[in-house]
C-alpha cells in the first residue's frame, strides 16, 4: 500500500490555493525529490503530509490514515523537519533532545544515537538553543526527528544551512531511510546534491505535482525557467 496517496488535493492558505489539485503516490522504500520554483507549493505539500494542514478537496491518505479525518494518527508517525526548528530557545541542546525524546516515547539510547549520527558537537550539549548558529540549530532539529525513527520522512530543504559534513550526513539519512523500507519526501533547490540519493523526481508547479520522466531524471537537473 502506498505510504502517501494524494489525489486532486486542494489546500488553501487563507484563500490562496497553495495546492491546486495535486496527485502524488509514494511507496514504502521510495525517496522522492520535490523540486520547483519558489512559492510552487512544496512546503505546503510537506506540511499537508505531516498532518499540519487540512486538505480542502480531493482524497488524501498518509500512512493509512485519512487526512480529512484522522490527522492525529499521522502526526505521530512522521519525521517532519521544516523551516522552524521546533526547539525551546531557553533549554539547552541536551535538554531539548531529552524532552522531545520523552514526548515521543523514545529511549535515551536511541536519542543519543541520533545526536551522534548528526555529529552534534559535545560542547553544544549545554549551550541554550537560542545561542546556536543556523546550522547547529538545524542539526539539532534533525536529531530530534531522527530519534523517532519515522517511517515517513518529510524534509523541507534539509541541507540549507548545514556544512559539508552535515550535508553528507543528511544524504546518508535519506539513503538509509529508504533502504530500511521507509519513505522520504525531500523538498530542495539543491538538485545536484539531492539527485544522486533519491529514486524519483517530482516537480511541484502551480500547486500541482508533475512526475518527471526517466530521461529528465537521468539529467538530474530540470530547468524551470
Amino acid at each position, binding site marked *: 500500500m502506498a505510504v502517501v496517496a494524494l489525489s486532486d488535493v486542494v489546500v488553501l492558505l487563507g484563500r490562496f490555493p497553495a495546492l491546486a489539485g495535486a496527485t502524488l503516490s509514494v511507496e514504502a522504500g521510495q525517496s522522492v525529490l520535490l523540486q520547483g520554483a519558489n512559492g510552487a507549493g512544496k512546503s505546503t505539500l510537506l506540511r499537508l503530509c*505531516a*498532518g*499540519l494542514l*487540512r486538505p480542502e478537496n480531493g482524497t488524501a491518505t498518509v500512512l493509512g490514515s485519512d487526512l480529512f479525518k484522522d*490527522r*492525529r494518527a499521522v*502526526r*505521530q508517525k*512522521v519525521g*517532519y523537519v*521544516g523551516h*522552524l*526548528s*521546533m*526547539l*525551546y*530557545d*531557553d*533549554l539547552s541542546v541536551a*535538554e531539548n533532545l531529552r*524532552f*522531545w525524546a*520523552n*514526548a*515521543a*516515547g523514545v529511549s535515551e539510547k536511541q536519542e543519543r544515537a541520533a545526536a551522534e549520527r548528526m555529529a552534534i558537537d559535545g560542547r553544544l550539549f549545554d549551550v*541554550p*538553543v537560542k545561542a546556536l548558529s543556523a546550522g547547529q540549530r538545524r542539526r539539532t532539529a534533525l536529531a*530530534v526527528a531522527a530519534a523517532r525513527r519515522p517511517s515517513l520522512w518529510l524534509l523541507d530543504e534539509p541541507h540549507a544551512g548545514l556544512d559539508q559534513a552535515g550535508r553528507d550526513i543528511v544524504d546518508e539519512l535519506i539513503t538509509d531511510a529508504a533502504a530500511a523500507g521507509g519513505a522520504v519526501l525531500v523538498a530542495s533547490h539543491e538538485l545536484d546534491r539531492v539527485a544522486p540519493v533519491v529514486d524519483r523526481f517530482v516537480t511541484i508547479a502551480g500547486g500541482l505535482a508533475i512526475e518527471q520522466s526517466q530521461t529528465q531524471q537521468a539529467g538530474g537537473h530540470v530547468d524551470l525557467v
Partner: protein
Amino acid sequence: MSILSEVRLIMGKDLRIERRSKIALNQVAPFAILIVVLFGFALNADRAALTTFTPGLYWVTVLLASILAVHRSVAIEAGEGAREGLLLSGLRPASIFLGKATALISQIFLVSIVLLGAVVIFYDARVDDAVLLVTSLVSAVVGVGAAGTLYGALLGAQRARETVLPILLLPVLAPVLIAATRAFGDAMGTVATDGWAWTALLASFAAIYVAMGVVSHGVLMEEN
C-alpha cells in the same frame, strides 16, 4: 507513557524554562507589586480606603499579573514552532493541557503569595481567618490558571494574541474577581459575608474550567 508522566513531562519542561528565565519571580511579581503601589498613588494614599478595598485591589492585580503569566506560558510554545512539535509528538492533548496548567498555576500561586506580603505591608491588611484565605486563594488561582491555559491554547501562535487575550479572559474571570474579593473580604474582616460560600463558587469555577480544558484541548489540537 501514562497520562501522569506526560503531565509531569510538560510541567517539568515549563517549570525548568521558568527556573532558567526567572520571569514569574523576577518580572511578574515585581510588576504586581508595582501596581499595588500605583493604587496607593491613585487612591491619594487614603489609608482607610486602601484598607477597605484591599481585597478588590489585590485581586485586580492578581488577574493582571496572571495575564502576563499566561502570555509567557503561550509564548514558550509559539517561538520556534514548538507548538507544532507538540502536535507531532503524540502526547495526549489532555496531558498537555494539564501539564501547562499545573506549571502556570504554580507560578501564579507564587506571585499571589508574594503579593499578599506586599498588601500586608503597603495596605496594612490583616488576616483574620488564615484557613479561609488560603483555601479561597488556592481555588481562585486554580481557576485562573485553568481558564488562562484554555484560552491561551485557543489563541496559540496568533500574532494578535497579546491584545486579544485580555479581552477574552477578563470577562471570563469577572466571577473569580467577585468571589475572591468577597472571600478575602471575609477573611480580612473588611466585609461581613460568608467567605466559604464564595470559596465554594471559586472551587466550582476551577473544577469546571479544568474539566473544560481537558475536554476541549483535544478538540483544539485535533483539528487545528
